[in-house]
């Protein structure tokens, strides 16, 4: 597998102007006033992305993930280090940024295409697909200033995905459009994966990463803290989020999920059985918390997330044991991963999190396939 994106030793510093003197007069009058401070947005980032890989970049707000993405796209220049790219790249940073409001949708498709590095002939060849995908056939000769924001984004996305880039860079744009259009976009990303294109996805939504990516890179305050499998990277990502809590919140997070066991000693079960979890929690203060349970399939599909808001548990200082019982589990044959977390009942701060706290193996000998069985009766 050859490397398509090689990021080596990339760092980016921003100057923070505490008092901005942007006009000539101010600069002359105050040559030295207004201190500037250097801020490290990215520190020594190194990774490679192979051909056909889908890699997620995760991090909370201000972690530098968008800065990194902009460097990769060439919108920003790194202060040091370099990025090597092989193949054409299309970036979905802010959709429709290149549109000229006065021009028609048709003209903008050509202009935007050429910004992405395509010749007029190449755009001509895929023009009909672009219009089909955007579902804007009726408005294609209308100036885009009359478009709604949804139409705008649809057209831009349609251009970007139909120009067949070898590397597609996506920055949380999946959050736009209605649900049906989002599903269409995800479909297109899956198609890209099947075609062996390389995708770089930036998000703070763990679900998207789990659903789409092969691997993930975690950034925290501009530092690369993980480059690992999705599960491991997300575990580190959540830990980092927790690590931030004492700095921000009043409560110091000394609550930990120390162990997860089951009375029967095994997480193996049959479909329809009950399963009891015993969760050991240590704490140094009393707090009322909700237990969050996430269940994933091995492929990263979210089966269920619940936060038991109706039944907060009271955590006492010292050792605690929380019991959870799953009744007549409808899951079908397979291994399911369970993430457990404690969230403060008032306010919702994450107090403790344990990624992959347990792996539940469900045995099922019926004929149904899939994830869950729906109880049904058939009548004529």
């Amino acid at each position, binding site marked *: 597998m050859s490397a398509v994106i090689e990021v080596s030793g990339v760092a980016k510093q921003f100057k923070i102007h505490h008092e901005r003197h942007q006009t000539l007069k101010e600069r002359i009058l105050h040559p030295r006033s207004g201190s500037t401070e250097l801020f490290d947005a990215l520190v020594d980032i190194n990774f490679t992305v192979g051909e056909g890989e889908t890699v997620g970049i995760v991090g909370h707000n201000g972690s530098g993930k968008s800065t990194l993405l902009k460097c990769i796209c*060439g919108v920003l220049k790194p202060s040091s280090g*370099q990025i090597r790219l092989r193949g054409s790249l299309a970036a979905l940073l802010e959709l429709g940024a290149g549109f000229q409001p006065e021009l028609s949708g048709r003209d903008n498709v050509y202009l935007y295409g*050429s910004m992405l590095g395509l010749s007029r002939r190449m755009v001509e060849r895929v023009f009909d697909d672009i219009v089909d995908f955007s579902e804007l056939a009726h408005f294609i000769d209308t100036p885009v200033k009359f478009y709604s924001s949804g139409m705008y984004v649809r057209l831009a996305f349609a251009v970007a995905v139909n120009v067949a880039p070898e590397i597609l860079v996506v920055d949380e744009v999946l959050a736009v459009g209605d649900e049906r259009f989002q599903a269409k976009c995800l479909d297109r990303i899956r198609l890209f994966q099947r075609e062996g294109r390389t995708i770089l996805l930036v998000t703070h939504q763990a679900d998207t990463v789990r659903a789409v990516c092969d691997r993930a890179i975690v950034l925290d305050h501009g530092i690369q803290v993980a480059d690992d499998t999705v599960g491991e990277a997300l575990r580190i990502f959540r830990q980092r989020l927790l690590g931030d809590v004492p700095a921000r919140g009043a409560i110091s997070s000394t609550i930990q999920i120390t162990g997860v066991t089951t009375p029967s000693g095994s997480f193996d079960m049959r479909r329809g059985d009950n399963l009891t979890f015993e969760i050991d929690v240590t704490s140094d203060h009393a707090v009322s918390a909700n237990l969050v349970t996430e269940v994933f399939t091995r492929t990263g599909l979210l089966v269920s997330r619940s936060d038991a808001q109706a039944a907060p548990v009271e955590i006492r200082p010292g050792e605690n044991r929380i019991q959870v019982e799953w009744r007549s589990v409808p899951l079908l044959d397979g291994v399911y991963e369970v993430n457990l977390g404690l969230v403060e009942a008032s306010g919702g701060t994450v107090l403790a999190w344990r990624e992959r706290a347990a792996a539940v193996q469900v045995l099922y000998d019926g004929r149904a396939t899939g994830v869950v069985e729906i109880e049904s009766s058939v009548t004529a």
Partner: protein
Amino acid sequence: MDAAASPPERSASTAPRIVSARTPLGPRLRNLLERRELLWGLIVSDIRIKYKGSALGLIWSMLSPALTLATYYLVFSVFLKNGIPGFVVYLFAGLVVWTMFQTAVSTSTGVIVDRAGLVKKVSFPREILALSNVGASIFYFVIQFAVLVAFVLLIGHPVTWSWAWLLLIAFVSLALFAAALGIAMSAITVYLRDVRHLMDVLLQLWFWVSPVVYSYSNSLAPSLHRHGLTALYFVNPITPIILTFQRVIYGAPIVTSTTSGLPLHVLPSWSLSTFATMNAVILAVAIVAFLVALVIFGRLEGNFESEL
């Protein structure tokens, strides 16, 4: 759905692209060349947007210089009576050059700031934005120049046709100078926003130190020579370009004054080889200026995103 199923069509460009703090001049020029289609697209859309919705459309690109021409003609030929015969032709020849330079520089100075949304989101060689404005002004220049040629043919003005090839060199130098200044100023404006207003004033001044509405040889040359300032006057690279256009289009360097009936020294009576040498030097300087502007731009563009 299957239109996208042909990924390797562009993988012909196997050389990896490198994003780093500085891009050397060679790759910069290559990038510009590779993205000429984008440049073309931006020029066309610039022109289309400018006249969109106006009833006269492209005619404005001829009408407004025509009105400027009429104004100067009235002032210098009717009221102040400078005595130059066929002054309209003289004026027109200089004005097309100046209009092109001024339009290119003033429109490209603010272009990065104006199109911040694009610069912050889409990756392409940013010089292209300034170049697209230069390109649009070249387009207007071509129209105006065509009108000028049609005009001199119509009134049967004696043009020095055998020297016409000089115009090509002069024009390339003009375009390169305009591009150089436009590119450098567009980057500097990001950091110092008043450069834009300064540039407007500077261009006014620049206009009057260039021999557009007056004759260099008739009114300035003797006194400049007396004070030894001739070299200083020619520091302005636009002057030799304008002189070349005037010499070719207006033709005769010495004419008979319409007011006094005495011979009038309108243009320098240099030989063809002097003009050719001058233009060659100017072209060389223009190329250097263009490259220097690209280097300046490259040094400044790294922080555009955070300054905009």
